[in-house]
C-alpha cells in the first residue's frame, strides 16, 4: 500500500475540524461549578516602595495580598553562567514594585466586572523611586532595581576568538549603532488560568494556557511547596504562544493557591490591556557592531557589544539571560570568519521581564548583522547578495563548526540565497531605480540566517537554567479496535502537531491518520517533557514518536508472526499490516487478538503488550540548522515615510518536511510577525517607565492588509542528526523580515543618503531621517 498520509504529505490538519467549527475548548470556554473570577491590582508606577496596601472594609476574604499567601515562595530563575545574579520575583509584590502592571493584590468575585470593582477599591500607597527605563543608562544608573545588587546587570558575557585581528587595519571596517524595539507578544488568545482542588484525588488541577505544562507543574510545586504528584496541569486548546506562554506565571501561582484555600474554583482570563500594559516583554536590543572585511567584502570578523533589555525579573524557566547569552553565540550568523569578539549585557530595567519570542534573539541579531553587512556591500561596491556569497558557509564545508562552536549539520546556504535572488528580477529593479524620479522610491533587500532548533541537553546544561531537556518521550498505545494513541508531553498550539506526529506514526505503522489520536498538554496523561519551544517538537517529539512506533512495530510483528504461523524475523510491519512469506494480517487484527482474544496467543509472545514508552535523544544534541533567505522589494513614499511591500520571496530549507503545507503556514505566520517587528510593533515607555499604549489602536499589529503572500521555495537537505532528516522550522519566518525589510528601505533611501538603523521603521522615523539629512 502506498503511503499517502505519511512523511512529506500535505495531509489536512486533523485539529482544524474542531477549530474551524468553533468547537475547540480554550481556557475561557471552561466552566466549573462555583467558579469565581479573579482580577489583579496592578502597579500604576514603574518603580516604588510600597508603603501600605489597604483592602476595602469587609473584603478580608475576597482580596489577597502577599501577606495572605503564607508559605508561597517567590519565583526564582537562576542561570549557571558565571556572574549571573538571580532576581527574587514575589508572586504578589512585597516591599517594592519594579514595573507597571506588576501584580500587588488579587481580588475574587462572582464575575470579572465585580472583581474589577474590588480592584478599584483597593488603596495602595507608594514611595516612588526613579525609574530605570533605558537599558544603556541602566548599566551605569545609581538607582538599583534589586537593592542588594551592585549594578543593574543580570549577566555580562564576553567571548573572543583571534581578537588581535581587530587591532590591525582592515580594508573595510563598518561600524553601526542599531536598535530594536520592545514588543508585546500578541497571540490571539491571551493567557488564562482556571484552578480547582480535586477533593477525591487530593490534587490541585490547574488548567492554563501554556506551552509547557510539565514545567509549569514543576515550577508551581516549588512555589507552593507541594509534591509534584499533587498537581495536575492541563493545557487545553491554546490559541498561540510564541514564547508568551513559555513561562511560570505569578497569576498561575496565585490562582493555584486560592483554589487550595477558598473551596471553590477560580479563574483569571488575561485581557488585552493587561497583555499590553503589563507585558511589553521581548526583543529590545541595542548593538554597537563593527564588521571587518577584505576589500572584496569577504568577512574577517565581527566586533560587537550588545545590550538586551531584560526587564525587572528573571522569568522562569528561561531566565533573564537567555536572550543576551544567545546573542553572543549566534551573532556570526551563517557566515565563516576568523575573528570574533562580543560583549553582552542583560540589563535590568523597570519593565516587564523579557521572554523568549519566536526566533529568540535571532531576529535582532539578524537585523544587526545583515544591515551592517549591506553597508559593507555598499562600501565594497557589491550587490547585497554578492557580499554574502563571499562568506556564507559553503556546502562542501558541511558539517561545519563556526567561530563560536556552532555545528551546522547540513545544507547549501549559498544556493539558498541564489534561488531567492533569482526569483526577484534584480537587474530590472536596478534599471527601474535609475529611471524613477519623484517621491516614490523602490528598494531591494535580502537577509539570510540559520535557525538552530531542538538543541538539547549539553547546550542547556551549559546555560544552567532551571530546565534542561533530555530524552523526549512518547507513549504509543494501540487500542483494542486497532486505533493508535500517541501521548506526548509537548503542547500543540497552532503548529498542527496533532497531525504531524500522527503522520510520523503513520509512516512507521501505516495505521490510517483517522485512527490515530495525539494526546498532549496534560501532565496526568503524558510523559514528562520540557514542552514546546525552540522549534524542537518535530525533531524531538517526532523522534520520540518514531522511536516508540518502531518498538511497537516489533511487538506487533511478533504477534502477527504467531498469527501467520511464521518466525518473527520473517515478517515485516508497515502499511497497516504484518506481512509474512505466505500471507498477511491486519494490524487491527493483531490488536484485537492481544486485547480481546489472549487465549489465541502463547504465553511467551509479546508480554510487554501493545503500549510502548520510548525516549529519544539525537546522536548529537547541538541542534538541527534550518536556514532561509528572504528577498524583498519595497516602495517608500519619501514624502510621507510610508513603506509598502511589493514582493516577498523566501527560500527555506527545513530538511525533510513532514507536512509541507503546515511548514508553509509556519513560515507565513512567522513572516507576518517579522513584518510587525520591522514596520509596526513597538511598546514605547516614557521616562517614568509608563507604557505608552494600552490598546491595539496604540500598539499596531500587522493585519491582512499589511502582510503580503510570500512566495516560498523549499530546499530539502536532510539533517543527519534527526530520525527522519527533519529540521525544526517553527521560528525562521519571524527572523528574516526585519533585516530584509530594513535593507530594502535603506536601498530605496540610499540616493538620499539616508540609512535607517532603528526598528520599527515608522513613517515618522523615515521622514525624520530624511529631514535631518536635508537640513
Amino acid at each position: 500500500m502506498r503511503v499517502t498520509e505519511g512523511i512529506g504529505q500535505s495531509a489536512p490538519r486533523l485539529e482544524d475540524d474542531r477549530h474551524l467549527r468553533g468547537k475547540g475548548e480554550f481556557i475561557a470556554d471552561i466552566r466549573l461549578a462555583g467558579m469565581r473570577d479573579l482580577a489583579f491590582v496592578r502597579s500604576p508606577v514603574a518603580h516604588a516602595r510600597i508603603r501600605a496596601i489597604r483592602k476595602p472594609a469587609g473584603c478580608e476574604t475576597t482580596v489577597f495580598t502577599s501577606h495572605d499567601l503564607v508559605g508561597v515562595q517567590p519565583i526564582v530563575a537562576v542561570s549557571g553562567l558565571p556572574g549571573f545574579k538571580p532576581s527574587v520575583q514575589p508572586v504578589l509584590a512585597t516591599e517594592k514594585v519594579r514595573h507597571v502592571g506588576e501584580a500587588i493584590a488579587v481580588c475574587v468575585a462572582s464575575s470579572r466586572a465585580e472583581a474589577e470593582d474590588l480592584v478599584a477599591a483597593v488603596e495602595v500607597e507608594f514611595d516612588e523611586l526613579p525609574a530605570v527605563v533605558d537599558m544603556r543608562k541602566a548599566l551605569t544608573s545609581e538607582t538599583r532595581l534589586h537593592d542588594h545588587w551592585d549594578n543593574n546587570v543580570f549577566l555580562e558575557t564576553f567571548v573572543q576568538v583571534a581578537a588581535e585581528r581587530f587591532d590591525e587595519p582592515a580594508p573595510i571596517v563598518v561600524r553601526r549603532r542599531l536598535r530594536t524595539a520592545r514588543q508585546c507578544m500578541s497571540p490571539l488568545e491571551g493567557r488564562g488560568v482556571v484552578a480547582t482542588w480535586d477533593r477525591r484525588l487530593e490534587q490541585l488541577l490547574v488548567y492554563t494556557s501554556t506551552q509547557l505544562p510539565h514545567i509549569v507543574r514543576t515550577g508551581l510545586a516549588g512555589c507552593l511547596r507541594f509534591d509534584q504528584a499533587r498537581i495536575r496541569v492541563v493545557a487545553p486548546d491554546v490559541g498561540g504562544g510564541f514564547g508568551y506562554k513559555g513561562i511560570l506565571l505569578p497569576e498561575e501561582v496565585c490562582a493555584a493557591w486560592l483554589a487550595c484555600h477558598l473551596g471553590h474554583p477560580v479563574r483569571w482570563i488575561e485581557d488585552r490591556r493587561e497583555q499590553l500594559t503589563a507585558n511589553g516583554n521581548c526583543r529590545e536590543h541595542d548593538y554597537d557592531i563593527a564588521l571587518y572585511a577584505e576589500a572584496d567584502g569577504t568577512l574577517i570578523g565581527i566586533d560587537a557589544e550588545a545590550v538586551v533589555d531584560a526587564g525587572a525579573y528573571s522569568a522562569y524557566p528561561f531566565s533573564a539571560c537567555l536572550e543576551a547569552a544567545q546573542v553572543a553565540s549566534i551573532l556570526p550568523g551563517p557566515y565563516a570568519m576568523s575573528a570574533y569578539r562580543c560583549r553582552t549585557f542583560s540589563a535590568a530595567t523597570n519593565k516587564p521581564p523579557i521572554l523568549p519570542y519566536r526566533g529568540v534573539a535571532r531576529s535582532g541579531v539578524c537585523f544587526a548583522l545583515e544591515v551592517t553587512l549591506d553597508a559593507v556591500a555598499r562600501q565594497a561596491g557589491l550587490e547585497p547578495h554578492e557580499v554574502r556569497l563571499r562568506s556564507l558557509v559553503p556546502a562542501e564545508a558541511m558539517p561545519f563548526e563556526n567561530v563560536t562552536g556552532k555545528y551546522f549539520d547540513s545544507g547549501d546556504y549559498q544556493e539558498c540565497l541564489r534561488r531567492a535572488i533569482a526569483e526577484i528580477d534584480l537587474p530590472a529593479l536596478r534599471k527601474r531605480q535609475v529611471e524613477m524620479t519623484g517621491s516614490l522610491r523602490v528598494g531591494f533587500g535580502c537577509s539570510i540566517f540559520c535557525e538552530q532548533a531542538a538543541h538539547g541537553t549539553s547546550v542547556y546544561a551549559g546555560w544552567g537554567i532551571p530546565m534542561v531537556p533530555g530524552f523526549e518521550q512518547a507513549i504509543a498505545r494501540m487500542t483494542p479496535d486497532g486505533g493508535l494513541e500517541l501521548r506526548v508531553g509537548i503542547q500543540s498550539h497552532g503548529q498542527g502537531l496533532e497531525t504531524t506526529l500522527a503522520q510520523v506514526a503513520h509512516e512507521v505503522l501505516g495505521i490510517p491518520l483517522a485512527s490515530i489520536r495525539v494526546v498532549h498538554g496534560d501532565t496526568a496523561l503524558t510523559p514528562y517533557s520540557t514542552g514546546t519551544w525552540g522549534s524542537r517538537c518535530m525533531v524531538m517529539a517526532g523522534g520520540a514518536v518514531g522511536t516508540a512506533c518502531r518498538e511497537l512495530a516489533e511487538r506487533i510483528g511478533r504477534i502477527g508472526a504467531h498469527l501467520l504461523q511464521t518466525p518473527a524475523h520473517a515478517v515485516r510491519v508497515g502499511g497497516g499490516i504484518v506481512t509474512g512469506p505466505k500471507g498477511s494480517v491486519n494490524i487491527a487484527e493483531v490488536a484485537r487478538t492481544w486485547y480481546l482474544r489472549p487465549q489465541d496467543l502463547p504465553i511467551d509472545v509479546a508480554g510487554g503488550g501493545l503500549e510502548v514508552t520510548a525516549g529519544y535523544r539525537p546522536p548529537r544534541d547541538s541542534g538541527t540548522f534550518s536556514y532561509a533567505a528572504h528577498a524583498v522589494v519595497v516602495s517608500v513614499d519619501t514624502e510621507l515615510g510610508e513603506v509598502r511591500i511589493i514582493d516577498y520571496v523566501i527560500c527555506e530549507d527545513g530538511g525533510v518536511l513532514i507536512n509541507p503545507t503546515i511548514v508553509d503556514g509556519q513560515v507565513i505566520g512567522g513572516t507576518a510577525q517579522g513584518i510587525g517587528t520591522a514596520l509596526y510593533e513597538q511598546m514605547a515607555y516614557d521616562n517614568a517607565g509608563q507604557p505608552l499604549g494600552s490598546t491595539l489602536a496604540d500598539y499596531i499589529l500587522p493585519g491582512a492588509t499589511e502582510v503580503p503572500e510570500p512566495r516560498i521555495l523549499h530546499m530539502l537537505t536532510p539533517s543527519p542528526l534527526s530520525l527522519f532528516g527533519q529540521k525544526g522550522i517553527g521560528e525562521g519566518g519571524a527572523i528574516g523580515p526585519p533585516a530584509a525589510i530594513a535593507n530594502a528601505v535603506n536601498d530605496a533611501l540610499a540616493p538620499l543618503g539616508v540609512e535607517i538603523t532603528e526598528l520599527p521603521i515608522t513613517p515618522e522615523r523615515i521622514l525624520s531621517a530624511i529631514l535631518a539629512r536635508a537640513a
Partner: protein
Amino acid sequence: MKAAPFEHICPTSLAEAVALAGEAGARVFAGGQSLGPMLNLRLAQPRLLVQVNRLPELAGVAADADAVTIGACVTHSAIADGAIPDIGHGLLSRVAETIAYRPVRNRGTIGGSLCHADPAADWVTVLMALDASVRLQGPDGARSLRMKDFIQGAFRTALRPGEILRAIRVPRLPASARWGYEKACRKPGDFAHAMAAVFLSPGRCRAVIGALGGKPVILEDDAMSPIGATRALEDIGELDQARLRMQLVVLDRALAKARA
C-alpha cells in the same frame, strides 16, 4: 477590562432622552464605538447610559434643494452604502467607506463621531470643510451651530449638559465645486495621523487640516498657500518637523485631487 456598574435606559422619544441626558452622571450612548471602549477601560464611568440610536427623531434623513439633513444616528455604513441622498460627487459615501472597518461602521454613527470629537475623526474634518451645521436639542430648546463653532478642541464640543445632537445639515456641493480628501494612516481603517479636506468653488476655497492635537485648522482662500498652511500649523506649536511635513504633504495631495 469590564465596565464599572451603570444603569441603562432606552428612551422612546427625544424629549424623554433630553430629560434623562440632563440627569447627573448621565451619558448619551449611540453606536458605542467610542464610548464602548472608554467604558470597558473604565475611562468613562457614567451612572446612567441613555441609548439614543433607536430614536426615530435621530434616524431620519431629509433633503431640500440646498442641503441634506442627516439624523445623528445614521451609521457610517448607511452613508457608505448610499442610503442617504447624495450631496454631490458621492462625497459622503466615499468618506464613510474609509472610516474604520465594516463592523465599526455598522454601529458607529455620524453624530457620535462629531460629539466624540476625536481630532482624527473623518467627519470632524470633512464636515468642517463642507461648512455643515449641527442641530442640537436641549432642555432649553433647539439651536443650530456651524461645525467650526461646535468643535472646540480635542474631545471637546459646544454641547451643553443634557443637549443631544439631533441632525447634521450638509450643504449640497455646487455643480462647479471640486473637492479632495486625503489622509495618512498606518493601516487601512486606523485613525489617521495626518488628514486634509479641500473644498474649492468659484469665489470660495476652504481647506481643513485634521488629526492634530486639537481642533482642526481651517484655511480659507489665500491662507491655503503652502506658506499660509505652514504658518498656521507652526502657530499651533505642537508638531515636530516630521509631523508638520506629513500634514503639508497630505494637504498638497488633497489639493491636487481637488484640482485634478
